[in-house]
């Protein structure tokens, strides 16, 4: 299993068995929080509790660049140490939620690329059907979605940017529906990572 690990707060942020997904998330988060993708072997860690786990020798990770790296041969041990202490919990909760949403969107996009490369139908129902129909080119969609993720500072802003991608300004895309559909899709896509919101 791989984890997105932040030296800044000394905790995992999300985990997945696909390092490519996590690395893409790390790149999109570069300007917000410095992360590396690390390999670990601790079965007790999942996406519900990973932000309470730390690496016990994190300085083995490179901190000499402002860019994320994938550390494939990392053989460190993990330790359950409880909630992070860097950021007040109410602020961190919002930031972590944003990070998780970025992760979900990235994972969804990559999942579509692999499983239905010709179309974003169905998977992106939760965003908007019109969006998918209008932007028939998946590469364009991917680029636009990644751009939205990269430039958004919080979930509200991310939601607004995705909404702007849609032709239907006034219908279909409600935030609650958006989140509900994200959750629904997450259940299908993220079973391998014990993910559920």
């Amino acid at each position, binding site marked *: 299993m791989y984890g997105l690990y*932040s*030296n*800044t*707060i*000394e905790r995992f942020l999300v985990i997945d068995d696909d390092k490519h997904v996590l690395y893409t998330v790390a790149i999109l988060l*570069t*300007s*917000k*929080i*410095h992360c590396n993708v690390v390999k670990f072997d601790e079965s007790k860690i999942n996406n519900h509790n990973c932000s309470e786990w*730390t690496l*016990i*020798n*994190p*300085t083995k990770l490179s*901190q*000499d*660049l*402002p*860019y994320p790296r994938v550390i494939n041969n990392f053989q460190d041990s993990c*330790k359950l*140490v409880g909630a*992070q*202490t*860097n*950021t007040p919990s109410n*602020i*961190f909760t919002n*930031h972590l939620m944003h990070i998780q949403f970025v992760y979900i969107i990235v994972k969804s996009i990559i999942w579509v690329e692999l499983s239905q490369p010709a179309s974003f139908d169905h998977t992106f129902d939760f965003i908007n059907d019109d969006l998918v129909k209008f932007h028939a080119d998946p590469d364009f969609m991917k680029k636009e979605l990644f751009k939205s993720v990269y*430039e958004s*500072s919080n979930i509200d802003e991310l939601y607004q940017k995705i909404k702007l991608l849609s032709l239907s300004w006034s219908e279909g895309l409600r935030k609650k529906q958006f989140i509900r559909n994200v959750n629904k899709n997450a259940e299908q896509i993220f079973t391998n990572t014990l993910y559920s919101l």
Partner: protein
Amino acid sequence: MQNKYLQIHFTHFKQYHKKMFERFNFTNDGAKFFYNVGLSFGFNGYVPRAGVWSTPWDGDLVIHGENNMPVYDPNFTKSFSQISDETAKKIADRIDTSDEKFLVLYSGGIDSTCTVAALIKNLTQKQLENITISLSFDSIVENKYFYDNFIRGKIKIHDSHEFDMRKTVLEKGYTVITADQGDALFGTELGTKMYPLIEYYFIDKTESNYYKKNISNPDVHYSEYKDMIIWYLNNCMNGRFKKYGLTSEKTSFDLIFGKIYYDRLVKNIETSNCPVNSLHDFFWWIIFNIKYIHCALRAGGVQSTGRDRSKIFSKCINWFGNQDFQSWSMANNNNGQKINGCTQGRYKIAAKDYIHELDNNDWYYWYKMKVPSKQIIVNRYREDIYEETETMFGLDENYQMIHFTDPGITEYFYEKIKSFDV
């Protein structure tokens, strides 16, 4: 040898110095220790400003002007924000009186962002027309929010890959502003990279919690961490020893490097007149005292070319190098201004507060971590600079860059290192 030097030893060990050590095959402990210091801490800062600290060049080193350490004043009351604003207003005055043009080296890191934030806060739009930000793609990535909202389309920019102090100052007439000494004010990543290891070093949870919680507590003296510091200093050497060590295996002397270095630091602290209590104070003191001159001189040193650097240094402003900032740093240990917590996201907190007042970027405030970005940004494509640094020996008191290839230098180096003792 008549020369006095401001700094000796600019070059990385993998370059000329390693060749010199291999050529002369020094057998004295002083030479081995000196080499190991360079291995452990990269570009070597080895010019003490206070306290007892012997070097191979004792008596041949001098310190100029503002690079001298101020006398410790516990009653110094100016805030970090106040000094930042005052420093920016001095730039504004210089623009008003002489239409001086300034080029700010900007990496997107905390120190350079703090500098640009001060200029934005305190200069008028007209005065900002005399400011150019030298940055690269990396600078934008490191702090995209700041670039998008405060730099792009608002302040002139310059591609830092083209940066050369000599050309910028002498040919284009800019005064260069560098934020290189921010680390010296706040501490050093040498420390902040050690703090996460407390979890690893102290297996017992109660013990590790105690030591993590108290890294900047003045009532918990750094000597309580002595064994771990020595272990850590040895670790600092280990990585590079494998690659650049003079021998394939460590000698018994190499194995006690951490202890020797720690003992020397303790002696230096005890013979200085500034309180150094907590673990974070201990690491701060290394960069504020022993390594300070290196940070102060490297912009005109390793980031420039040519022999005569006098005009370059006369037009280079170390933003955090003025006496007020230094006095602030000495008077504000352990109060949360330098580090507020035990994680790397809580380091340089006074600078982050100052930036956040302007940009309200919570991500940057809570999670920006110190990374040594400047070297990447400025020097990445500068092969002509690398060629010159290959043989750099030191900067003499007249700001002339002296090279190993100059007459008498190799002999001087040999004699000094051979007779150095620890």
